[in-house]
């Protein structure tokens, strides 16, 4: 790693990271504050619309019938599409910057004229992302805790289990970053990188949220990244999510490694 390159990356990602973090914090805070007031209506709505119950149960990582309205409400802040979208968007925005973004905006010539290896640039960029993703996930947890504290809502689990859920969410973010980094190493256009990455995540989301409606989709949902992010399991079992973290971190490490290997061999062409 190179301190100058880390500073450059930090200079370029801090604004976006702060904006995503502020959005996530505000949303988690708001959910924590307002949701308890709607607990009764929420329970009735879940009972009335079984498909909603199925989708929420699938996103929480469990089967229908095991989630009570109170639990679903307590965990909604961790699986809400907006929360996932913010985490994913931040990962995609940062990890598509190098090399695809640099090639796309033509700044790669100046960057790579500096006396550093491609590996050094890669590691410096990855380091900046790992810290930014940690900051985002931590901010989400903070917003959730403060929101719950303001509303006085009874939490369905201990603070430790929520820290593990945050860790699981962080690992999901790292994996999305890894997939994006791999795509970025393969592409010359940042827009294309972002488009494909979002496509992959939309398919993931579709497989997870629809898994309880169709047997085939249920079988295929093993391919979804969201299958390894199961807040309900962590809450219910109170156990550290070793298996899910192992899968996510393996995918993450594999995609980062593959992206790095491609980066070492690729040309930086003028686009």
């Amino acid at each position, binding site marked *: 790693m*190179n301190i100058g390159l880390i500073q*450059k990356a930090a*200079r*370029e990602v801090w604004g976006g990271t702060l904006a995503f973090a502020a959005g996530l914090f505000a949303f988690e805070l708001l959910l924590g504050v307002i949701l308890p007031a709607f607990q009764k209506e929420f329970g009735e709505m879940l009972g009335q619309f079984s498909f909603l119950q199925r989708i929420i149960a699938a996103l929480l990582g469990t089967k229908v019938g095991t989630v009570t309205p109170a639990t679903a409400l307590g965990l909604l802040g961790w699986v809400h599409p907006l929360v996932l979208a913010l985490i994913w968007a931040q990962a995609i925005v940062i990890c598509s910057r190098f090399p695809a973004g640099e090639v796309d905006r033509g*700044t790669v*010539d*100046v960057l790579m*004229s500096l006396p550093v290896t491609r590996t050094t640039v890669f590691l410096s960029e990855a380091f900046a992302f790992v810290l930014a993703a940690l900051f985002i996930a931590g901010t989400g947890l903070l917003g959730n805790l403060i929101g719950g504290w303001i509303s006085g809502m009874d939490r369905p689990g201990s603070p430790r289990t929520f820290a593990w859920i945050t860790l699981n969410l962080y690992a999901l973010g790292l994996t999305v970053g890894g997939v994006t980094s791999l795509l970025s190493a393969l592409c010359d256009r940042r827009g294309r990188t972002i488009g494909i990455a979002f496509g992959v995540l939309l398919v993931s989301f579709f497989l997870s949220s629809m898994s309880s409606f169709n047997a085939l989709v249920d079988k295929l949902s093993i391919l979804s990244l969201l299958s390894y992010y199961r807040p309900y399991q962590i809450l219910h079992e109170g156990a550290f999510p070793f298996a899910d973290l192992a899968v996510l971190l393996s995918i993450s490490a594999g995609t980062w490694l593959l992206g790095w290997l491609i980066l070492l061999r690729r040309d*930086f062409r003028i686009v």
Partner: protein
Amino acid sequence: MSVIRLEAISKRYGLRLAVTAITLEVPQATMFGFLGPNGSGKTTTIRMLMGLLKPSAGTAYVLGWDCWRQSERVKAEVGYLPGDLRLPSWLTCREALRLFGRVRGRDMTRHGLDLAGQFGLELDLRVRAMSRGTRQKLGLVLALAHAPRLLILDEPTASLDPLTQETLYGLLRRAVSDGATVLFSSHTLAEVEDLCSHVAILREGRLVANASLDALRAQASRRVTVRWQSLDSANRATPANGVEWSDRSGLQWRGEVRGSAADVVRWAATQPIEDFVLEPPDLRQIFQGFYVGDHSSSVDRAARRSLGPSPQPSPWEGEGVRR
């Protein structure tokens, strides 16, 4: 010692061969012109030198280091200005010097600020607010500020005003006199003629010429123009040895010196001539000969061919030897 050594270097993009087996050496402390029409492979060659592109075949060396395998060592000694310079929009000159110095592990600020002063750069203006020429100046400052042993400049004067161009020429001449080497890609032939001691010319990805400018000048023909005092004196003129006249009508004769220029001057001194212009060797014609591809066998033939259809500016307005 060769600062740059290209050994049969080629680059293929799919089916298209952008650069074909270029072998070239650039000696130390020279200003080396790298010429060729658009799409001839200059930028591709330069990008292989910078480790941005991997050669499909052959090897490029800078200061003895392999440009692909040891690119970070190469880049520590090179100052590079890309042809299409793009910089992060948030950067200012001051920030860039600090940041690039930190990446390079050396203080670039002192020399960089001095260069910025010479180019008249505003230190705290962001790139997004800079004109193209100002961005080019910043690129030059960043290429020069670490006092590199090799400067690779891809069309550096393309968007610079004449005053800034002169400042750059001065800096480059000083760098060469201090032992640095400059590889200078340009479309402006007059600039290359003025600055460079050696040139290499590419066409369609192949090296078609590699020579010192003195060698090219020695092969280039000179134009001569004579204005007689009267038609009668023109008719009474004795034949000039070594001049091939292309136009002998009226009072003004035009031709090309095929022999010794000194002989022609001596001949002119004995004639009833009102004015006499002997132009310097016309390298532009030679370069153009290489560009359009009729330089296959000899420099002289290409120069002769290209002389024909070109417009003839009045020699009395140009530089030359006057009597």
